[in-house]
Structures are given as C-alpha cells and as structure tokens.
C-alpha cells in the first residue's frame, strides 16, 4: 500500500509538472514581457555560476588528461591526447558535468528562493498587487537558465581544454597552438551542434524543476528545505534522462 501511494504521488507530481510546463509556454507568449527582470536573472544565474563552472571545468580537464595519459603512453599514442580530450569534453563530459554543477547551484537556489517567497506570502503579495507572479518569477528564471547554461558550457569547455593543455605542456612539452590545433581539428559538426543544442534543454529542465518545486512549496520553512533539496535531485535525474534521449537522437541522425 505504501509503495502504491508513493507511485501515486510521483505520478501526480509528473502531472503537475506537465501543467506547470504548459502554463510556462502559455505565459511566455503573452504580454506584458518582463525584459528588465529577465536581464537581471540572466546576470544572476550566469554570474553566480561562473566561478564554480570555471573551477569544475578546469579540474575536469586536468584530471582527464592525467588519468588517460599513462594508458595512451603504453600504446605510444600520446599525440592523440588533444583530440581524445576535446571530443570527450565537447560531446559529453563538459555539458553533463557543467549542467550537474549548474543544477546543484541554481536549481536549489531557485527552489529555496521561490519556496521562501511562497511560505512568507510574498508571491501572494505580488498577485494581489496586480502583477502576475508566474510571469515575473517563473518565466524569467526558466528563460534565464535556458539561455545561460549553453554559454556557461561553451566557456567551461574552453577552460577544461586549457586545463588539459597545461598538463600536456608540463608532461609532454606541447605548444599552446599545436595543442589547440589538434584539439579543434578533431571536432566535427556532429560533435558540436548536438552537444550545444542539448544544453538548452538541460538549462530549461533545471529552471523548470527549480521553479516548480519552489513555486509549489508547502509546509512552512521545512518545505523550503525540501523544495531546494528535491529540486536538485529531480533536476539531476531529469538531466540524465534528457542526455540519453539527446545521445539517442544524435546517434540516429549522425551515427556517432
């Protein structure tokens, strides 16, 4: 019985999330548009995540190169290092790891912020002052995460490649120009475009889940913690599902 009620709650939540998504698409197309708030949210979301994304990406670049180098060395294939690293980072590791970092930072932040606004009646106060809080709080945040994550991923990928170059330069004495020539020459259209496109969906999912959990927060201050926590868990899970779908579709069209 306990199991069935959990499944029931899960299915109800999926249904509610579907209605929330439908409302987003309805509100995003209707006037008035909150451009000023959208810009503020883009700055907040991008600025708040930049340092974390940069450090994470740099370390990923260092670690991948350090761990892969001995194996490639065994086969005398160190010269393949830049192309191997660039393909793995651009195609998969960069978007997924950066999106997960972003989800941890932003989905929980949005969940906690909107959750706290809900329990302290700030969202109700917006509603009674004649402002549509869904449009002002939710639409702007989802739009901001959708736009900012691809930019962060592009910057993060570049930083990860730079980290990889530093290790290669120390261990193998390769020049900056040669490293990046090899790294970029290994990339094809089918590596860059699908990988970048999927980050828009990742960003949308992170914003959507954070807003959904926060906007529908209940049970007072305890509920705020639950909203923040479940936003990260749900968003991370959704990212992997979306990633699988994206890779599956890419495989059909580009035969990766």
């Amino acid at each position, binding site marked *: 019985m306990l199991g069935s009620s959990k499944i029931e709650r899960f299915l109800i939540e999926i249904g509610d999330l579907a209605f929330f998504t439908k409302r987003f698409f309805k509100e995003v197309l209707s006037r008035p548009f909150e451009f000023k708030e959208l810009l503020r949210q883009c700055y907040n979301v991008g600025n708040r995540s930049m340092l974390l994304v940069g450090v994470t990406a740099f370390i990923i670049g260092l670690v991948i190169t350090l761990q892969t180098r001995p194996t490639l060395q065994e086969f005398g294939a160190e010269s393949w290092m830049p192309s191997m690293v660039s393909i793995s980072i651009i195609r998969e590791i960069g978007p997924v790891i950066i999106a997960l970092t972003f989800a941890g930072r932003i989905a929980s932040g949005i969940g906690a912020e909107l959750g706290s606004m809900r329990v*302290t*009646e*700030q969202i109700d106060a917006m509603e009674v002052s004649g*402002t549509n809080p869904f449009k002002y709080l939710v639409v702007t945040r989802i739009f901001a995460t959708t736009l900012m994550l691809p930019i962060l991923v592009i910057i993060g990928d570049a930083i990860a490649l730079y980290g990889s170059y530093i290790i290669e330069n120390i261990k193998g004495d390769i020049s900056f120009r040669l490293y990046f020539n090899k790294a970029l020459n290994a990339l094809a259209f089918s590596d860059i475009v699908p990988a970048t496109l999927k980050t828009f969906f990742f960003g949308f999912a992170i914003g959507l889940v954070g807003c959904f959990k926060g906007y529908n927060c209940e049970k007072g201050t305890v509920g705020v913690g639950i909203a923040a926590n479940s936003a990260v868990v749900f968003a991370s899970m959704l990212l992997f599902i979306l990633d699988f779908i994206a890779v599956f579709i890419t495989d059909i069209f580009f035969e990766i």
Partner: protein
Amino acid sequence: MKTQKQHISKSHDVKASLPILKIENLKKTFGQNEVLKGFNLELYEGENLVIMGKSGSGKSVMIKCLIGLMEADSGYIEIMGHDLMALNRAELDELRTEVGFLFQGSALYDSMTVRENLEFPLRRHKHKFGIVDETTPLVEEALENVGLLDAINLMPAELSGGMKRRIALARTLILKPKIILYDEPTSGLDPITSKEIIELMRNIQKQYKTSSLIITHDVDCARVVAERMILLVDGINYAEGTFNDLAASKDKKIKAFFKQ
C-alpha cells in the same frame, strides 16, 4: 444548538448605503474538512468591520477567497459591484488596485529595498495616477503617512517587526485602494507596537476614507477599530453586532472570544 446570526444588531448607520463588498453563502472544503459552510458578509462604504474567530476557523481562507488567491467551492462574492468569480485575469488585476491587502507576516519582498517594495505595485498601474515614469512622490507620500520616510533605502532584513508592518501598510496604500483587508494586523507584535499599528489603521481610514475588513483575534484591536463585528465559528457567521453588544453576551461561545 445556536442558530446562525443569533445576535445580530441591525442598528448601524452605515447600512443605509449599498454594500461595497458582499459575500453570500461562501463554502470551502479541504479534503474532508469543511472550513467555510455558508459564510455571509456585507461591508459598507467607510465602515470598519472586524471578523473574529479561533485559529483554524476559516478567517484566512475567507479573506483569500475574497481577493481571488483561493477559489471557493461555491457562493457569491461581489466587490464594488463586480462578481469576482466572473472576472478574467486582467479585470481581476484591475479590481485588485481598489482592494489593498495587509498580510499577517507583512510579506515584504526580501530582495528589494523599501523603495522598490513600494514601487512594485505601481509597475503595472501607473496609469491610475496619470504617471509615466517618476514614482518617487507617491512612494514618499506613502512612507510619510506611516512615519518611515527615513527607511526608504533600507532592506526588509534591516527593519523591526513593527516597521515591516508599517512599510507593508504603506505598500498597500500606494495604489490608494477603496477597501483594505487586514489579516491579523497586530499578530506577533508587542503591545506598544500593536497600539501604534491600530492607531495608524484608524488614521489611514480617516485620511483615505477607506472601508476596512479586519481579521483578528486580538480583542484590544477589535475594541478600538470595530464599528461592527462578526464572530466566525465552525465556518458560519455565528454572531454579529457591535463590540459592546457581543462583549455583553451571555452565550458561552461568544464569551470565550472576550476572555483574555
């Protein structure tokens, strides 16, 4: 078994005019819990009407249905001649400029300064005052009315509970509403600050000639501001009258409200 409206006093002068706000047979249920079982109310122009009820008696649910924050299961709500349930989103937003709401916890926007908090309701409704851009005079006027002009650039976290309530009141006033709904205006405040807020409410009513619907369980607040009172018990208006009429009642349930 007491019948509904057992203690009604019909002597109040303001009833000569048409009600500015009317609720008929309002019902609201949460799961198995029937919170409102046919609540009725009429608020007249310039009147201070106090609703008293125990915690969980449905006061806050009623006031949220009244402003459209919650949907009632059935019943009729009329505000300034408009059937609330028949309004679309834009019409409801327009009507809300005529109805101010003071929240129990003040509900100031944490991420905005006091100035931005007060400017927020004006974003969509500047046309009401013929303003294109400059909102400072309206903000300053509203803050002056609550005696907190100096706090204009502070953040809500820097304000005391009483100051927050005053700023929230200023934000409510900025659209110059005809009706103000107060949800527990003195809850969580010390007696001195409560008296200040009550005094402020009276001054505002005199200055702006607003009609006020005040939800409270603070007897002192009710004594000072109520021109008429409704006691909400078990989801219905159990008794109605002036403060003195109700305070003198021998009914056990009514007496329970005035034992403090």
